[in-house]
């Protein structure tokens, strides 16, 4: 057979021959069901990629892994100093320290997940060009890496909230059963972030310019989500205020605050938990399908 010329052989002949020999077509995205199964089968891979990337990140520093805790702690201290003590944004809040610390930590998790997810394909192009695996593993593991480093920083966050009572202008509400709600709040946030990462990963793969735009979008979103100020205290317009309060990022900040703070202006609201769950599931499903639809095209330069 070697050396056979294929002049005159049509594509249909070759496709028939392929079908008879049990060959599968390359570069065609698998059906959604198969894709989900294949991605699930690679969950160890996603986990291992996540821990490896955390490890690689702090590899060349003297303090090493301690930076995953130090970095957010320093960040929170800066915000507390500027907005809480110097600018006195605390009006309308009993515990502005807790408010700002929770806001910055949860928002940081979101923005790092979005950035990491967006870059996940380009960053691992070597891997994409060498091996076969569902590409969704890459954005998923990027968010997983952020989630893994969020867990120790939650300790720092809780510590800041517990210590907030030492400031004279702060009323610390105490610890109660509602603190347990932090766990579902973080899980919902994580699911939402994974959906966002999948969407951004696909957009970034075809539009690398997003890399330059994303930081600005994230900064606008930070001010639009009430990370360092209370939305209903500053935004008077009722329509605008509701839109800002029910967009997903603000919802997840609110859920974490409902859990840890005893703020009279942030009561436990069941509706917000329902909205948070809907945003999480909706974004994840839409993001996964959106990402899967371009599966055959990742890795093209």
């Amino acid at each position: 057979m070697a050396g056979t010329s294929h002049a005159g052989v049509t594509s249909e002949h070759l496709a028939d021959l392929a079908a008879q020999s049990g060959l599968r077509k390359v570069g065609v995205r698998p059906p959604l069901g198969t894709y989900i199964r294949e991605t699930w089968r690679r969950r160890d891979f996603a986990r291992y990629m996540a821990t490896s990337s955390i490890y690689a990140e702090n590899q060349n520093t003297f303090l090493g892994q301690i930076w995953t805790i130090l970095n957010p702690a320093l960040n929170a201290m800066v915000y507390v100093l500027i907005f809480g003590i110097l600018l006195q944004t605390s009006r309308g809040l009993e515990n502005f320290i807790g408010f700002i610390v929770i806001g910055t930590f949860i928002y940081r998790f979101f923005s790092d997940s979005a950035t990491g997810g967006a870059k996940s394909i380009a960053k691992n192009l070597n891997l994409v060009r060498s091996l076969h695996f569902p590409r969704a593993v890459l954005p998923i593991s990027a968010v997983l890496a952020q989630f893994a480093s969020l867990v120790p920083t939650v300790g720092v966050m809780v510590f800041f909230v517990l210590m907030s009572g030492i400031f004279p202008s702060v009323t610390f509400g105490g610890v109660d059963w509602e603190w347990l709600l932090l766990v579902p709040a973080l899980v919902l946030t994580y699911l939402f972030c994974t959906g966002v990462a999948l969407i951004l990963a696909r957009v970034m793969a075809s539009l690398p310019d997003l890399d330059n735009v994303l930081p600005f979008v994230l900064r606008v979103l930070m001010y639009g989500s009430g990370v360092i100020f209370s939305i209903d205290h500053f935004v008077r317009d009722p329509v605008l205020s509701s839109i800002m309060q029910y967009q997903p990022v603000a919802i997840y900040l609110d859920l974490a605050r409902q859990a840890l703070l005893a703020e009279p202006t942030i009561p436990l609201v069941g509706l917000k938990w329902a909205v948070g769950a809907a945003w999480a599931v909706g974004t994840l499903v839409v993001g996964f399908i959106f990402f899967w639809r371009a599966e055959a095209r990742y890795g093209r330069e």
Partner: protein
Amino acid sequence: MSSQDAEIDFEIDAEDLPDRPKTPLVLGPPSVIVDDLRVTYRVIGTGKRAPVSAGRNSAFRRLLARGRANAVRVTEVEAVRGVSFVAHHGESIGIIGTNGSGKSTLLQAVAGLLPATSGSVYIAGTPSLLGVNAALMRKLSGERNIVIGGLALGLSRREIDERFQDIVDFAGIGDAVRLPMSTYSSGMAARLRFAISTAAVPDVLMIDEALATGDAAFRQRSKAKIDQIREQTGTVFFVSHSLASVRAMCSRAIWLDHGLIRADGPVDEVADQYREYVEELRSTGQDDRDSAL
């Protein structure tokens, strides 16, 4: 395309080369079918600069025009321009051609790792490509690369643990497995990559210059592995500049020239044609590209 500067020629001693299997292998059913495959690279932000007309334009308008000319410019580079062939189980095929003839691109597209612009590729099982960029994650240790490669191929953690020592031994890198792969020599990286890729026996193995970086002992080990794959009725593709290696390793050769097949047939026939072509280029002084014979 991506490997131009990494393609280094190696003079290979004849006695280093393993013998080609003397027994003619029986060809099985088709394992790879390529139908009119085309691959076009999209390069963003390069290309000819549009002339900016001087004259009465304001400086602002000139700036604007130049900005626009620089911004949206997508250059298309045709690397593979319509290639068709059928490969069979138990066959080993050498792909030869000068630099930039599209050899590496063809392999990546056949492996399904580089999306084709048009045409179809059909393949049996899972292909495994050994490219020039051997390190999967340069910052991480060889150890972690083995696990990542294995997991990506679909092995379980236990299977990887079981094969771990074999992979390290086969690659012959010893304690260096704990160091980041950025510290590896290209030979060490290529050997480790070969060992990872063949840990799960692939149906179609594609080797892009990877063996050229190994020493004689490793070449013997890899040759044995390739024979094992072929005995298990796999198919091996082998891209090399070294005609001697292709003659030693392959039964069939495909000569690629500017993205098109120039010849396809028994290895000695095609290799002789290619040698004549290169010698002719050399004698007319046209050739400044490297072409080992």
